[in-house]
């Protein structure tokens, strides 16, 4: 009996320690990244052009590529998610789609980058472009979008669908008027999650969107190369020729984390809280 109680106490202490260590690690990472970054961050750094030591063009490209990649991946990802949640019956096609989604989710991002390189740079001959980078990045988003859409739709009670179908609605009307409205917050949370990941991605973009920025700023031409913030952080590390490489790296790292935090806290968190409240009141 005593040894049981002892092992229970020891295990409890170890588990608490692990929990605190994990949270402590995160706090340390955030404090360090932001602490180093705030020494560098200024309006000129965030929005200024490269010639004045700023990362404005990179920040612009980051969002531009993100938006374009969502334009590709959201319709397909949400569509496939709707298929799996609403239409799919156990069949070979369904199994194949599910397996494909899981496979695509584990493909290393560098492999997605090389695939983009083959298609956009070599087959289509476009060179490094924002368009190609966004398309390759869309492949990273796609499986996550399928999964979050399916999960969000599955939280809608079956009775709601039956209620609508029983009134003579078609399946599409039911999806559009009942299922999608009640799962929209889940979808938004999912898209934020995807965006946060896509913003920090670099391996896919090095050989699709390239490591240089346009001379114009902002440049909306999708057929020019467009280095993002994450790629920039990678690039300055290896380039001793960049002036103040350390400061630029620290600033870029902090800016990236701030953008991700913003996505998580300003969009993701309210949606999550609101959703919980919605469910709690039911």
């Amino acid at each position, binding site marked *: 009996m005593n040894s049981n109680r002892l092992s229970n106490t020891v295990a409890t202490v170890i588990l608490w320690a*692990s929990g605190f260590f994990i949270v402590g690690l995160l706090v340390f990472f955030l404090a*360090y990244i932001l602490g180093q970054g705030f020494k560098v961050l200024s309006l000129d750094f965030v929005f200024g052009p490269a010639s004045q030591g700023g990362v404005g063009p990179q920040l612009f490209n980051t969002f531009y590529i993100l938006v374009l990649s969502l334009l590709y991946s959201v319709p397909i990802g949400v569509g496939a998610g709707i298929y799996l949640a609403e239409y799919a019956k156990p069949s070979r096609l369904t199994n194949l789609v599910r397996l494909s989604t899981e496979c695509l989710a584990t493909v290393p991002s560098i492999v997605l980058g090389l695939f983009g390189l083959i298609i956009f740079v070599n087959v289509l001959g476009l060179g490094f472009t924002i368009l190609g980078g966004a398309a390759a990045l869309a492949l990273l988003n796609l499986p996550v979008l399928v999964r979050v859409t399916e999960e969000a739709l599955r939280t809608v009670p079956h009775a709601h669908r039956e209620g609508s179908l029983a009134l003579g609605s078609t399946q599409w009307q039911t999806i559009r008027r009942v299922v999608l409205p009640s799962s929209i917050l889940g979808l938004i949370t999912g898209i934020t999650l995807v965006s946060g990941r896509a913003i*920090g991605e670099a391996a896919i973009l090095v050989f699709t969107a390239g490591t240089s920025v346009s001379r114009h700023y902002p440049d909306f031409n999708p057929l020019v190369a467009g280095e993002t913030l994450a790629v920039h952080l990678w690039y300055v590390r290896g380039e001793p020729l960049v002036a103040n490489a350390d400061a630029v790296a620290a600033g870029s790292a902090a800016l990236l984390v701030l953008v991700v935090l913003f996505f998580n806290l300003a969009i993701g968190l309210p949606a999550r809280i609101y959703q919980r409240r919605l469910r709690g009141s039911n």
Partner: protein
Amino acid sequence: MSNRQLNSQLAYDKLFRYIFIISAVMVSFVIFSIIIFVSKQGLQTFQDISFWEFHTGTIWNPPVQFGAVPFIVGSVSVTLLAIALGGPLGLAGAIFMAKVAPPWVREIMRPATDLFVGIPSVVYGWVGLTVFLPIISKYTSGPGFGLFLAGVILAIMILPTVISISEDALRAVPKSLEAGSYALGATRWQTIYRVLIPASLPGLVTALILGMARAIGETMAVAMVIGNSPQLAGSLFGPTATLTTEIILSMGQTPFGSPWNNALFYMAFTLLMISLSMILLIKFVVNRRLVNEQ
């Protein structure tokens, strides 16, 4: 509702059904295209390079010698190191969150682990360079770049994967099993390791495999801290390279279609096959076992 309206509703219904099916098929189409294009490019390697040399040679000196063993060993070593360090910590964190932490602590930890995912891989690499590298360098009186540092950074990076999947698996164990164990006078720890862990084992194994898949495919953070020396790491702290780091560093310097360039695509193909077989392993071995037990 008039007949015409009804017909147009039915037409819409059909149209959207096809749109959704096509979207779903696109996902499969994408993964097959990736496999086909990357393998086609990669397998051209062996028109110029001996298959045998590539897989068994230890000297990487293109365009003369193409022994890729250092990269393969490097990738496997950092992955094993990452899972050896991050696996137990992640599992402990998941058990803590699922079964030990009071609700308010859980409310803090859940978004905290989400934020770990949000930190970009280049930023992990940068923290590795600026914080961990000097520490390791001091204690080993070497440059600090190498296998160990890469393993530590990867261990932190795979934490959220391991934690969230294994926490879900632990939570999926029916409460009644837990109650049954407590009603026999078991302590919490006995209940955890004798009932909860065995009952959620397939999920926990899945979490570890997916953590390893994430580690072996990770590029940027590893490339920033591993030292990028195309040779076997002499020691735990020695510099080496992995499949991913060799690809990212050499791709830009080699002309498309050259043997060296093709070899990089073949490395990507190898990575692709490794991650796909991990998924198949999870789907057809780990989860199949679960089905048989019930």
